[in-house]
Structures are given as C-alpha cells and as structure tokens.
C-alpha cells in the first residue's frame, strides 16, 4: 500500500516525464471541450484519440483538452500543433476522423486537407 506522499512523488515524477515529453513532443493535440464541443460529441473524440495513442504506442505526442474555440457550428474541433508551432485546426471531427488524424497527420505527417477548418 502506498502512502499519499509516495503517490505525490510518483505523480511528480510522472509529470516531469510528461513535461519533458511535452517539450520534445513532435505534436500536441488539443480537443475543444466547451459546451458546444461536448454537446457535439467531443468526449467520444477524446476517447478515440486516447485509444489510438495507446494502440499505436505513440509516446511523443501530448494530448490535452481546451475550452471553446468560438466556432460552435464546427464542433467537435481538434487542433494539431506541429514542431514549429504551426497549428492545424480540424472541424466537425467524428471519432473515426479523429483516429484518421492520428494515423495520417500525427504518424505520417499528412494533413487531412479536406477536413481542415479555415
């Protein structure tokens, strides 16, 4: 049985590892979780992304949630930020499209132009 202090230490260590990863992360993915995003299905999009990260054993990518981006009719929205801080924003993302973004954009550096929101 671990004490709370042990757990804190473990979490600090894990957080540090993740912070290093965040810095060295090739891509950062954020899912918009404002009210419109959630109502449009952002939770399942997040679940699909997390699932792909584990299945594909991807480690150099950091996944976060953000608030609303202000384009409610385009929700769910997913942003992928690349190594030079260039951000691509995808709109109307389904869980299936989210999986494709991981497979194509994140793993093969191929932007899915048809789904990019301008």
């Amino acid at each position, binding site marked *: 049985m671990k004490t*709370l202090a042990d*757990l804190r230490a473990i979490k600090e260590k*894990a957080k540090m590892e993740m912070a290093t990863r965040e810095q060295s992360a090739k891509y950062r993915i954020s899912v918009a979780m*404002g009210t419109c995003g959630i109502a449009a299905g952002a*939770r399942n999009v997040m679940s699909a992304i997390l699932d792909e*990260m584990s299945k594909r054993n991807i480690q150099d990518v950091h996944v976060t*949630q953000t608030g609303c981006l202000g384009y*409610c009719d385009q929700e769910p929205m997913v942003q992928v930020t690349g190594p030079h801080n260039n951000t691509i924003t995808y709109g109307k993302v389904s869980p299936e499209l989210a999986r494709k973004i991981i497979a194509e954009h994140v793993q093969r550096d191929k932007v899915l132009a048809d789904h990019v929101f301008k």
Partner: protein
Amino acid sequence: MRELSLNILDIVTNSIEAEATRVIIAIEERQSQNLLRIRIKDNGRGMDEEFVSKALDPFMTTRTTRSVGMGLSLFRQSAEQSGGDLDIQSQPGVGSLVTATFELDNINRPPLGNMAESLVNLIVGSIDVHFCYLHKTDFGHLCFDSYWLFARMAESESDIYDQVAPAKRLLREKLKEIKSKSF
C-alpha cells in the same frame, strides 16, 4: 445534454479554465430520499457575488471567443426540469462549488451516463489538475483519485495512455457494484 456525465465534464471544464489545481466531483444517489446530488468543487479563481448571480444567465460569459456561455444554464435547466435545482457558492481567490440536485425517479432526469469516460478523459487531458471522484449510493461508495493512473503508470513503467482503458474498466466495474437496480 443526453447524459449528466456530459454536463459534469462541461462544469469541470469551467473549473479547469478557472485555473483550478484541485477538483472534487461528488455524486450522491439516495433512493430512500429520491435524491440525486452532484457537487463539483474547485480551487480555481472563483467568482464574486455579483458575478455568481449573473453566471446562470446564458448571456454571461468571460469568454472572448463568443458572447454566450451555456454550460451552467444547461445544467440548471436539467436540474429544474427534474424537480431539483442548481446552486453556486463561490469566493474570489478561493474557489467554487456547484451543486445540482435532481429527483432520482423524475421522468425528465437524464441518466448519469458514462462517468468513467468523462472522468478518465478529464484526468488525462489535464494532467496538472488533481481530481478526486466520490460516488455514494444506498449500496456502497466509490472513491477514485487521479493518482491511481500515475501510480499505475509508474509501477508498470508504461505510458499514461496505456492506463486509460484499465482505469475506465475499473471505474465501470466499481460503479456497477454500487449501483441500485433502478438507476
């Protein structure tokens, strides 16, 4: 929202946007009292009295991206339609507590839905925030702390993403154990 667990995800997102570092989600289901109570407590930046009185107005938002904020109003609507209400206690610099109550057997009450999805996604999507989830029913209680994922991660020297499925499974199982038949 089809599920209260989606409202919860939404309200906790407010806490995260208010820069909370600790969030407690407490759910209490009492068949004996025909009551479902959901409480979300954070240590975020809080709101002053005047703001709280207006926060439930959908036209009240500090968002710069658009002029309406729907999260709290939707949650209140859901509670009121289910014979309950929504209350906000908040103090600037200290934090906020949102409490929503529902009649458990009210026909308009949305189901709680998939809390495991909401909670685990929140934890992994905001790793700097410490989450604690408490769920009490007439049959038992559950307590899940976000440290669980990090401890598992350290023990198995695996990635956080590999803890998502096990954490969701564990939560679903534990919740089933304490669920009443009618819920």
